[in-house]
């Protein structure tokens, strides 16, 4: 099974994702020694129509694990920038409601 790609959203410009959760997830990713992409704020990238969203969604056949907020919001944020993230096999992990340990477990496939 190919190694999953990981995308982490820092939600830097609002306080809707619990600070402790997002910091613990970021720290867990950094300490795990895995490759990952961290973006300051998916909302801002979507609003700017940032071309990098398409690159992040990817098309190399590997599943994409996204640690951000509500799956419905994340899915349609990508869509608003013209990217069908589900077509790339995205798996969503909600840092607004799930404990950091659960998010890390899901993202790292443990």
């Amino acid at each position: 099974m190919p190694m999953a790609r990981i995308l982490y959203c820092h939600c830097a410009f609002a306080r809707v994702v619990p600070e402790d959760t997002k910091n613990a997830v970021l720290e867990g990713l950094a300490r795990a020694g895995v490759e990952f992409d961290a973006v300051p704020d998916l909302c801002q990238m979507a609003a700017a129509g940032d071309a990098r969203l398409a690159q992040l969604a990817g098309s190399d056949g590997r599943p994409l694990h996204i640690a951000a907020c509500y799956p419905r919001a994340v899915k349609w944020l990508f869509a608003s920038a013209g990217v069908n993230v589900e077509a790339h096999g995205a798996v969503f992990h909600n840092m607004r409601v799930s404990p950091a340990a659960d998010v890390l477990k899901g993202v790292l496939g443990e």
Partner: protein
Amino acid sequence: MSSKEFWVSSVAATLRVVFTTPVEPAASRVDALKVILDKGYAVSVVRDMPASDDGATVMIPAAEAAGDPNAVVAALDQMRDDKGLQPGGAWKPWFPVIDYQRCTNCMQCLSFCLFDVYGVSADSKIKVQNQSNCKTECPACSRVCPEVAIMFPKYRHSPINGDVVSEDDVRREAMKVDISALLGGDVYAALRDRSAKAKSRFSKERDEDRALKERQTCLIKLQQALDVPPEVLAALPSIDEIRAKAEAARQRAVAGLVKT
């Protein structure tokens, strides 16, 4: 850390730093990640440094990266300024996101919003076209959506924040949409009634202060019902402008609906 282990890329609107992993010590790496992300820059942690993908990748001296993430941020700030990009956080990314699996293209949001946030696509579908026109913390258009199809991901409460929509949510939002119920029955009859009473009262006593108070009471009711921040009400255009905008929006909505 060698000088090849730390790069900055200008691929897109969000500048990105590329780290190689593992970079020790882990604690300082986490701190660096937080500082860079908090400032609005993206970070990629990779095992092997990728080739420059846009011909504009810039390398930052390794010493700056290892010792002081703020030095990296300063370099990024300079690069951002050179490219004419906006500083991260200059605008809180607050705007509606449409769930097209729920949206029925009824155009109520387009008709409702006075700030031209919505538009109609070439294939006559409702779309969000001016995100930055949206008023921060105002989720009012999502309140008038009968399908709970409009999300504000940075809103506090469910389901407008993107949480799963339940049947209870649909029922509750539909109740809020019923503006006539909000005003107590037939809205047009109520307005006629109010107008007649006002004329009668003003003919006896022209009391502008009282009229102003009544208007404020109405606005407060609306503000509470739709969770509209006071700043948004304060920023509303004049009555004539509102009428003109509403008519223009209505015509765009009708034109969009006719094509579908």
